[in-house]
């Protein structure tokens, strides 16, 4: 078990990052910090997917003259590019919403917001 974990230490790093992000979301009170935690979780997922596409002694999936295999898988790269753009969009929208919340309520601390209701 430990040896298998050590062989896949790249994936284990993603799991650790994911847990850090989840911890921030649950434990922190500030909305911006919560959202940074969500961003860390997204990054963990991206790192995991990118790590899946790695091949030992591989080169980037760019053909043309002089390119020789083995090539890294192009699909994880394309998927993660899509994912990053969606992550940026959600980040922008969430920050806008947080600005709006701050303007309306004067605070972005989750417990103070809960008391206001």
């Amino acid at each position, binding site marked *: *078990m430990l040896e*298998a*974990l050590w*062989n*896949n*230490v*790249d*994936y*284990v790093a993603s*799991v*650790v990052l*994911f*847990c850090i992000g*989840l*911890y921030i979301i*649950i*434990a922190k009170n500030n909305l911006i910090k919560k959202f940074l935690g969500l961003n860390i979780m997204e990054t963990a997922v991206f790192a995991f997917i990118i*790590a*899946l*596409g*790695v*091949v*030992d002694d*591989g080169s*980037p*999936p*760019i*053909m*043309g003259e002089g390119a020789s*295999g*083995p*090539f890294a*898988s*192009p*699909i*994880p*790269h*394309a998927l993660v*590019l*899509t994912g*990053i*753009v*969606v992550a*940026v*969009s*959600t980040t*922008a*929208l969430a*920050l*806008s*919403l947080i*600005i*709006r919340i701050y*303007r*309306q309520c004067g605070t972005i601390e989750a417990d103070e917001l809960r008391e206001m209701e």
Partner: protein
Amino acid sequence: MKKALVAALLIIISIPMLIAVAAMPPHGDADSPVHTHVSARYIEHGEEEAGAENLVTGVLLNYRGLDTAGEVIVIFTALMAAFAVLITHPGRGEESGPTTAALDPEPGTEPESDSKAPPPISPVVSFMVRLLTPFTTLFAIYVILNGHVTPGGGFQGGAILGGMFIALTIVLGEDKVRTLLPRRAAPWMQGAAVFAFVAIGVIGAATTGYFLGYPTDASLHLVRELMMVVIEIGIGLGGAAIFATIFLQMEAE
């Protein structure tokens, strides 16, 4: 107490993930399922089928072009949503808002612009940003235009352009940078990615019968590359304009 509970919860959550990770094929194994199914075919035939030496661009614009079109619409929708969320300002009431004040500087608006003047920027930072701007722009254009043969593409180049725009806004102030994104051209720039995708998609539908279909004939590979470059330019310009606009919109408050 709460933190201990959260940590216990995280350990409980992470155990199944770690077990799953341990059971996966070794990292970098060329025989793992990731490398033996679709991507093996893409690597073998991708260059001739998709028409791009950079297989990531081939996958993005050709094999999964509809996906990318949807993604472009997602960032456009995010921009619209950010506008909708930020458009009203209860504290300002009948005032015309900071963006129009920036466009038509009148004597009466000066006190307001003084009160929200940006904090002074270090001259070193200001000089470096201004010095690097032409090179950053050149690099962004290179990345956008060579997306189909080298690493890069519209999204990457657009992010570089947008980041440069944001750095310039911080250093020079909003008023000067606004001239780069004139009010009348702004909506067209923000929609550039969507427009490019729809235009190329309709052209593809007219010529091949499929939305976003590219000519597969070997003699037409230049046309195919041109279509990809048009989409890349659209994505680059549109992405940069959207990032910049969202930033300006947030900063304006």
